C-alpha cells in the first residue's frame, strides 16, 4: 500500500530539520539549498509551511518529459527522476503546476522528491509531527479523529 507525506503547517516551527535531512539523504551534505522539501515562512501571518511534491497520480512532469526520464516507482507511488536519462531540458519544471520539480545547475538534471524509496528522511527528522508519512488513502485520518473527538465532546457534554 502506498503512503504519502501529510503536512500539517500548524505544527511546523520552521526549524528546517526536514530540509537538512533531505540534503543529507540525497547529497550527503548538510545544505538546505539542496533540499527537495522547502519550508516557507509567511512572516507577517506567523505561519511556516513545508511544501514538496505530492506525487500526482497523473503527474504533469511525467507526461511532459520528452525522454521518459520520470517514472513511477511501483513500490511507493513516487514519481522518480532517472538521472541517467534526464537531459536537463526543464520542460517538466514548466509543466508542474506546483513548482516542486526543479533544475539543479550542479548536475544538469532536475530533482524532485522521491519519497526516499519509502522511508522519507524529512518525516523522520521532523521534531513536531508537522510532516508524517501516512497511508495514501487515509491522509485525513488524523484530522477526522480530531474532529470526531471534538464532536463527541460536544454531543456528550
Amino acid at each position, binding site marked *: 500500500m502506498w503512503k504519502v507525506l501529510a503536512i500539517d503547517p500548524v505544527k511546523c516551527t*520552521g526549524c528546517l530539520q526536514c530540509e*537538512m535531512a533531505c540534503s*543529507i539523504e540525497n547529497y550527503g551534505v548538510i545544505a*538546505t539549498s539542496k533540499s527537495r522539501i522547502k519550508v516557507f515562512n509567511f512572516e507577517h501571518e506567523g505561519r*511556516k509551511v513545508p511544501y514538496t511534491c505530492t506525487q500526482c497520480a497523473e503527474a504533469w512532469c511525467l507526461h511532459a518529459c520528452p525522454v521518459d526520464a520520470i517514472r513511477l516507482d511501483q513500490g511507493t507511488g513516487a514519481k522518480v527522476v532517472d538521472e541517467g536519462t534526464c537531459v536537463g531540458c526543464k520542460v517538466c519544471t514548466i509543466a508542474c503546476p506546483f513548482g516542486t520539480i526543479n533544475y539543479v545547475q550542479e548536475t544538469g538534471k532536475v530533482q524532485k522528491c522521491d519519497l526516499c524509496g519509502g522511508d522519507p528522511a524529512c518525516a523522520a527528522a521532523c521534531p513536531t509531527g508537522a510532516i508524517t508519512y501516512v497511508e495514501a488513502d487515509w491522509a485525513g485520518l488524523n484530522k477526522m479523529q480530531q474532529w470526531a473527538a471534538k464532536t463527541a465532546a460536544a454531543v456528550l457534554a
Partner: protein
Amino acid sequence: MGYANRILRVNLTTGTCQAEPLNEKWAQLYLGSRGLASRYLVAEVDPKVDPLSPENKLIFATGPLTGTIASTGGRYTVVTKGPLTGAIACSNSGGFFGAELKFAGWDMIIFEGRAEKPVYLYVEDDQAELRDASELWGKSVWETEEWIKAKHQDPLIRVSSIGRAGENQVLFSCIVNDLHRAAGRSGVGAVMGSKHLKAVAVRGTKGVKVKDLKRFLEATNAAKQVLAINPVTSQGLPKYGTQVLMNVINEVGALPTRNMREVQFEGADAISGEAMHRPRPSDGKPQLVTNAACFGCTIACGRISKIDKNHFTVKNSPKYWGASGGLEYEAAWALGADTGVDDLEALQYANLLCNEQGMDPISFGSTVAAVMELYERGVLTAEQIGFPAPFGSAEALTKLAELTANGEGFGRDVGLGSKRLCEKYGHPELSMTVKGQEFPAYDPRGIQGMGLAYATSNRGACHLRGYTVASEILGIPEKTDPLTTEGKPELVKAFQDATGAFDSAGICVFTSFAWTVADIAPQLNAAIPGEWTPERLLEVGERVWNLERWFNTRAGFSAKDDTLPKRLLEEPASTGPAKGMVNRLGEMLPKYYEVRGWTADGVPKPETLARLGVDV
C-alpha cells in the same frame, strides 16, 4: 569537516575582502564561535583601543556545529570590544544567518577599519564584496532586509544588519538578523555603525560536511531525544518561551522591580507567558500567535506575536499589525517589571521598536527604569524629558523607545545607557549596572549566586554567562538554596565554564536545561577533528573565560569592577522569600578568585594561564 576551514577578512578602509585559512591550532583550543573569535580579537586588537574607533575589529563567528543538523546548531557570535562596557563584548544570536554563513563556506568574518561611506557586505558562496549602502543608511533593520532581498532578487538571502540605533551609536544597539533575532548585548551594533557597515547579506549553497556523517546522525539524534523528553525543553519553552519564568521568578522574590527597588512586581502575571496566551478583551485574540524555531532547533522557544491593533501605540501604524517577534522573558521584564509597566501591548510595541531599529531591550528598559527613578526623585523633570515619566507609565516607555531608536530629544540621553545617564545627572548609584552593562531579570538578593555571576561576568551584568538560576531556582542539574552563599563560587565557575563550551560549539545555551557537556562531546567527535570529552569541553570553557578576563584586565578592569550596585549590597529585599536580605557578594568573591586560580586582585595567575594553555 564541521569547520569550513576558512575565514573572511574584510578591510573596510581599503574595501578589500580576502580569504584566509582558519587557524586550526586555535580551533582545537577554543573550539569556535565565542571562544575562537575571542582568540582572534585578543591577537589583533589592543585591549585599550577606543571601541568606536577604526582600530577596533568586529568579528562574526560560527561554531563547529553551526549549520549542522545538531539541534539548535544555528548560532553565531559577534565579538568585539564593547562600547557600553569597554570590556570584551560577545553577543550571540540565533535565527538563520549563522548557518547561512557556514553554508557559504566561511567560519568567520573579521571586519577591520572603517568605510568612508556606508557599505554592506554581500557574500554569495566564495564571492564576497562590499557594496554601496548609501540608500540604506537611515533605514530600519526590517527595511534593510527587504531592500537587500529585492535588490539581489533573492528571497533566500539571510541578512544581519543594524537599524537607526546602531547608526546613531546608541551604546546598547544590537545587530539583528532574520528580522527579530539579535546579537543583543553590549552595544555591538554601535561598533558596526561606527564602521559604516550597514549589513551583512549572505547566500550559501555549499553546505556543511562533517567528519563521520553516520556517527554524527546517531549522536545528534540521541541528543535530540534528550531534549524531546525533558519537560523544560519539550513543554515549558515551546509553550511559554522564556516567559515561562515571569511568574516563577516573581514568586521566589527575585523579579527586580522599578529599577530594582523591589523584588516582586504586582503586575507580573499581566506581563507573563501565561498572559500572552490569554484572549484580549479588545479583539478576543491572544497576543501570541505561535512559537517558532531558529535554525535546526527542536525546542522552538521563539515567540511570534500580533500586537493589538487598537492599542494607542499602533492604532495609526499598520506596519506593526502583522505577526512579528514577541516578548521574551528578559524583554518583558526590562520593559515591564523594571519600569513598573504592566501593559502587555505597550511592552510588545517597545519590543517591536527594539527589533525594528536594533536596540537591546534589556539595557533600554533598564535605562528607562533609571530615568523613571530620577524623574520620581525630581532630578529629571517633565520639561527635560519632554513629558512626565513616572514608574508605570506606558506612554513614557513607548515614547522613549521611539526617541531613543531615532536618536531624537531625550532619547539621545537614554541611548547612553544607564551608567552614563545616571552619572550625567549626578546619581551614579541609581544605575543598575555592572561594568556599565544593565542587569537582566534576576535579583541577586533572592538568588545569591547570580550576584557573583553578574559581578564577575566578562561582558558586564549578564544572565547568559553563568546561569546559576538553573540550579538555585529550577534545580538543574541539582537544586541549591538560592538564599545561601555557600558553594556558590564553585557553582558559578562550573556554570561559567560549561557555558563557554556551549557558546563556542555553535549551539544554543538553552539546550543546557537538558544537556550537559557530555551530550555535546559525541556530536563534536563525529563532526570535527580531535577527541572531545566532557572534561576537555569544560577546559575549553575555562580557557575562554580566562582569555576574556585577560583581555579585560589589560583593558583596565580589576577586582574593584567585580562588584554590584550599592542598592543590591545594602538595601534589603522588602518582600518575598528573600525579605531582609542583600546580596552577600563579599562572602563569595575571594573564594571565587581562589577556585579560578586568580590572585586576590582577580588577575589570572601565570600558572593558571599556563595550565590552560592560554597562549597570549
